């Protein structure tokens, strides 16, 4: 029973902070709410018997990626910039369209109850089993991701270097 209480509490936390991200005008508040939402999602991962990925969620997402976001927001002093509202028709279509999308998705998932009950037996995954699978069956994608990360580092350096800015302005 305690499992269900934890699920509903952290599901509510995740959804409420996600709404704050979308609705709040100040991007610093948005970034911090997104961190809270990611923490709630890490709890969901623990409930799904994936403690290793929950740890990764906290370290990589809530730690590294969101610190990068906050760093850029504060570097550019964006919290003082007023954001102009979008056109009313765009506002209406955006809110209405996404609400219709979400409601229909939830309706069909609950109506046709993709999988109405949990699995009978537990499937706890440790870092060891994931690591063995990662370095045996998934070694090629793993190496490709490492090359992708290298390309991202080089791309970020080139984009933000002084020389790139000069080239564009000249």
């Amino acid at each position, binding site marked *: 029973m305690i499992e269900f209480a934890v699920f509903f509490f952290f599901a509510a936390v995740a959804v409420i902070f996600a709404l704050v*991200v979308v609705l709040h005008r100040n991007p610093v508040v948005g970034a911090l709410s997104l961190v809270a939402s990611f923490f709630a999602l890490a709890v969901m991962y623990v*409930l*799904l018997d994936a403690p290793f*990925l929950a740890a990764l969620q906290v370290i990589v997402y809530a730690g590294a990626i969101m610190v990068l976001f906050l760093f850029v927001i504060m570097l550019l002093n964006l919290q003082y910039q007023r954001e102009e509202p*979008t056109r009313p028709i765009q506002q209406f279509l955006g809110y209405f369209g996404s609400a219709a999308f979400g*409601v229909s998705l939830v309706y069909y998932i609950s109506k046709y109850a993709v*999988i109405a009950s949990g699995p009978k037996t537990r499937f706890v995954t440790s870092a060891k089993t994931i690591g063995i699978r990662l370095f045996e069956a998934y070694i090629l994608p793993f190496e490709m991701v490492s090359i992708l990360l290298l390309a991202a580092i080089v791309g970020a350096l080139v984009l933000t270097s002084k020389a790139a800015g000069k080239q564009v302005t000249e």
Partner: protein
Amino acid sequence: MIPTAWFLILSAMLFAIGVCGVLTRKNGITIFMSIELMVNAVNLTFLAYAREFHQLHGLIFVLFIMAIAAAEAAVGLAIFINLFHHRETIDVDEANLMHW
């Protein structure tokens, strides 16, 4: 055990909120954060199905998605810094150099 459908419903709600952010906001960083929210909703779906079918593939896919999200964040934020240096704003409507 918590039914898998509940995780799917939570994931659908988070994804819809992310779609709403992308469609209604103009601040580039906020749009980017909404995209991260959608990526996380998909991760939750992957993990829910991985538990349901007792498969490791879903977990490893989530691992790769996290790595790609990190790369995406680095390059995307570099683009926004560049945009800010040229336009003094990160309003995505101002980035209209290629607009016809």
